[in-house]
């Protein structure tokens, strides 16, 4: 059964990606790299787990679950935006970058913007 192997591979891949993402959450040095690790790989991981579950119900039980596809599209649209908003809020409230960072273009831009608005 190729379907079973496909489902198993997708769910295992998703679980491994989620595990990698949580390792990234522990190992990365600052907020920005952590959100990089947390949003990308766990989004892909959850999406492939959902796709595996969708295929499981489609192939083994002949049930087409549109909710699962909707959830995949929803996660794909929202999880990166959540990461973006967290990173943005962190930067704007002055969370420092890792010491190993070499360039911070947004700081210059933000400073000139603040000078212009007089804040």
């Amino acid at each position, binding site marked *: 059964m190729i379907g079973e192997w496909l489902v198993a591979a997708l769910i295992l891949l998703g679980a491994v990606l989620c595990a990698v993402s949580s390792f990234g959450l522990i190992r990365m040095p600052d907020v920005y790299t952590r959100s990089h690790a947390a949003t990308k790989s766990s989004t892909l991981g959850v999406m492939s787990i959902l796709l595996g579950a969708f295929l499981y119900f489609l192939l083994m039980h002949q049930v087409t679950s549109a*909710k699962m596809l*909707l959830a995949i*599209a*929803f996660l794909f*649209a*929202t999880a990166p*935006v959540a990461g*973006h*908003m967290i990173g943005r809020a962190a930067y704007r409230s002055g969370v420092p970058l890792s010491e190993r960072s070499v360039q911070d273009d947004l700081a210059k831009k933000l400073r000139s*913007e*603040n000078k212009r*608005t007089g*804040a």
Partner: protein
Amino acid sequence: MRRMKANDVILRTVAKLVVFIILAFAAHLFFAGHNDPGGGFIGGLVTASALVLLALAFDLKTVRKVVPVDFRIVTAIGLLVAVLTGVGSFAFDQPFLSHTFAYKELPFLGKKELATAVLFDLGVYLAVVGVTMTIILSIGEDR
């Protein structure tokens, strides 16, 4: 707090798209409630969450303009609908809140089960949306 021009194009664009998915899912939950998990309560909460997402991405003034209803009145209408479905059973010499159903041939949809319990659920839905939005909007407007 520093005053800065809000520049959240990404959040706003995604909110505009996602709100429709959430509202469609809320409608699905509401109508699925008879035979599957779902119903008026969770459908109302999901609808309220879509409105809260709009209020987060834009602001309360915009939400009030887009959805120009007083949510206290929505709560009242919901309670009224729920009570009226109960009172309606008196017209057929049945005890209070006796529900009935029938199979009808609908245009486009085919043969569907129409139950009066859905009307009661509609009352629950409206009451939940009204109460949740009243709580959140009245807390959010506090300075």
